[in-house]
């Protein structure tokens, strides 16, 4: 059974066809055999009785007058009855008057008187002893021996016919199987192969549909559906591919634009800054009373700060352009993290003062490790400027600490905080948790910071509640793995 279930569909079809036909043929023949055997006894009995009646009613005179020639003639009519094997006529004193043998060899067996009249089966044969009389006068005895040879021959014939039929059936079943296979299993196999091709990416695969067969044939129907499916699928995939190409193209164009724009903006800034420095230097040498130099110094200082801001924005844009092109590389060196943080704080003394924040600084000495000095400073600056921007006039705490493997920087403000929904996206590009109109900036600071921390194999995280301030934590391994 398991072998049958494991075999291919065409052999299943063959098996079913064969089994059905063979079983029904066998049943028919078993029926014939049973009928033949069951009716045989009855038939031969009847046949022999009729024969005996006929012979005995005709052989009376021959027996009476001991006319063996006539008796022989009568018995010779047995030739028409193939069931009769032996026949003999006995006179009253038991001598054989005439005998007949189908094979013309055997004589009737000698009968001892008084013989029992009647009909009895002797093994496969039927023996019949019949009195011959005329007008109530016993004249002699007829002996008949019928055998089952004809019956057996007939059964043998049936068996031969059965064998021929079974052979023919098996042959035609194999032929039928070929036809069925071309109708059913081959189309299914074709479908399965096509499905395999589609799965491996060849969406142009189609299976042939026989338009003559029409859609009443399930396999043909399946083929049609399959082709429809693959058409839809390839259309969908093409659409998707085009959309993605468009999107990628757009992103590439934006990034290119960003990069070019940043470079173009940056180019004039450096000479402008230099020019401002030169102007400042000259002003120091000029008498203060002349040209109202004190006001000029102030104006130029403001211009310088604005310029500084533009430089930072452009630098951010340049960083983003680098990051998107995968060109952010670190220049690792020995860093004293405390010194770096204090340096930044010194640089932003003015800004802290003007923001009105009360600063708590906990920066111990001696935390040393590998980092990109400028990039780490950039992270500190980003976090600090964010805290000053969103947490003005509130306490601000900056802490530096270390454990066995990491240096940890915590920047805690008591500003507007970040909602839980926004916490997930503030580290994305151009992401802003606050309206653009209320607070300036491009929304790139945290994105760049995160990229820098990631490049150091560290992590940056935020804990915050709307209205209650935020805590940003940066953790960097003291010895970053080299990529």
């Amino acid at each position, binding site marked *: 059974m398991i072998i049958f279930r494991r075999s291919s569909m065409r052999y299943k079809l063959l098996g079913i066809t064969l089994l059905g036909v063979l079983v029904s043929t066998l049943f028919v023949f078993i029926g014939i055999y049973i009928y033949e055997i069951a009716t045989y006894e009855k038939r031969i009995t009847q046949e022999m009785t009729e024969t005996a009646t006929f012979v005995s009613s*005709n052989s*009376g*005179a*021959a027996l*009476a*007058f001991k*006319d063996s020639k*006539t008796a022989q003639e009568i018995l010779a009519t047995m030739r028409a009855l193939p069931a009769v094997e032996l026949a003999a006529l006995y006179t009253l*004193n*038991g*001598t054989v008057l005439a005998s007949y043998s189908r094979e013309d060899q055997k004589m009737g067996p000698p009968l001892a008187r008084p013989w029992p009249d009647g009909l009895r089966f002797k093994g496969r044969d039927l023996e019949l002893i019949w009195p011959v009389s*005329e*007008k*109530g*006068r016993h*004249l002699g005895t007829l002996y008949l021996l019928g055998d089952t040879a004809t019956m057996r021959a007939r059964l043998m014939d049936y068996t031969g016919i059965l064998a021929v039929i079974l052979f023919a059936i098996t042959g035609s079943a194999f032929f039928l199987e070929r036809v069925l296979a071309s109708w059913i299993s081959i189309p299914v196999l074709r479908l399965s192969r096509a499905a395999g091709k589609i799965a491996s990416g060849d969406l142009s695969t189609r299976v042939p549909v026989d338009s003559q067969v029409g859609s009443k044939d399930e396999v043909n129907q399946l083929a049609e559906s399959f082709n429809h499916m693959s058409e839809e699928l390839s259309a969908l995939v093409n659409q998707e591919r085009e959309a993605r190409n468009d999107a990628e193209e757009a992103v590439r164009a934006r990034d290119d634009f960003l990069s070019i724009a940043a470079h173009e903006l940056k180019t004039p800034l450096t000479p402008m800054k230099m020019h401002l420095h030169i102007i400042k230097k000259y002003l120091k040498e000029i008498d203060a009373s002349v040209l109202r130099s004190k006001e000029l110094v102030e104006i130029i200082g403001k211009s310088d700060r604005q310029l500084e801001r533009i430089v930072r924005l452009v630098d951010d844009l340049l960083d983003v352009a680098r990051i998107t092109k995968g060109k952010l590389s670190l220049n690792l060196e020995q860093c004293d993290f405390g010194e770096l943080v204090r340096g930044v704080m010194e640089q932003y003394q003015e800004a802290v003062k003007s923001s009105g924040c009360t600063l708590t600084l906990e920066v111990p000495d001696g935390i040393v490790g590998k980092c990109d000095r400028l990039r780490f400073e950039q992270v500190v600056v980003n976090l600090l400027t964010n805290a000053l921007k969103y947490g003005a006039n509130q306490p601000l705490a900056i802490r530096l600490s270390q454990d066995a493997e990491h240096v940890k920087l915590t920047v805690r403000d008591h500003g507007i905080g970040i909602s839980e929904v926004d916490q997930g996206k503030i580290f994305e590009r151009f992401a802003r948790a606050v309206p653009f109109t209320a607070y300036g900036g491009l929304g790139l600071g945290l994105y760049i910071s995160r990229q820098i921390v990631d490049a150091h194999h560290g992590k940056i995280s935020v804990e915050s509640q709307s209205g209650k301030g935020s805590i940003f934590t940066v953790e960097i391994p003291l010895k970053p793995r080299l990529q």
Partner: protein
Amino acid sequence: MKRRRALLSVIVPLIWVSSVYAQAPEYQVKAAMLYNFALFVEWPPARFASPKSPFLACVLGTDPFGPWLKYELRRADIGTHPIQIRILKNAREARNCHLLFISRSEEKNLQTVMTELQGAAALIVSDVSNVRGFCREGGMIGLIMQGGKVRFELNGKAADSAGLKISSKLGRVAKNTKCGEDDS
């Protein structure tokens, strides 16, 4: 004792008969044949007063059978009719017989005898030497010797006109069924 004797009386002749059958006396064979003829002939029902009335087997002329006729017919009935044997001298007496055997002793006045028997519903058998002549005169079965065996010729026409029905089976074992018709 009685039963034993009866058994012996059957068995002894049987053994004897079967052992010497080939050399059985001519008139024993003929006696047996007379009986057998009766088995294959139907008489008109009017010839018997009742089913039990006797079947008359007659011999006309000198009885040539000796003991054999009695022996062969000893226990037999023809159908339901018991057999009675009569030896006759006069043809006129023979008209009532069912089966009549005409002895050779009557051959010389056969014509007279046959005229006397005209119209009698009797099966007339004889072993006269001129069997053809006997048949022409209306004899029905003529016995002849052939190769040491007794055979017979049938005159179906005569039997028919006498109202007797002779079974075709008897015709089949007869040497000839048209005795007296063709003088070839």
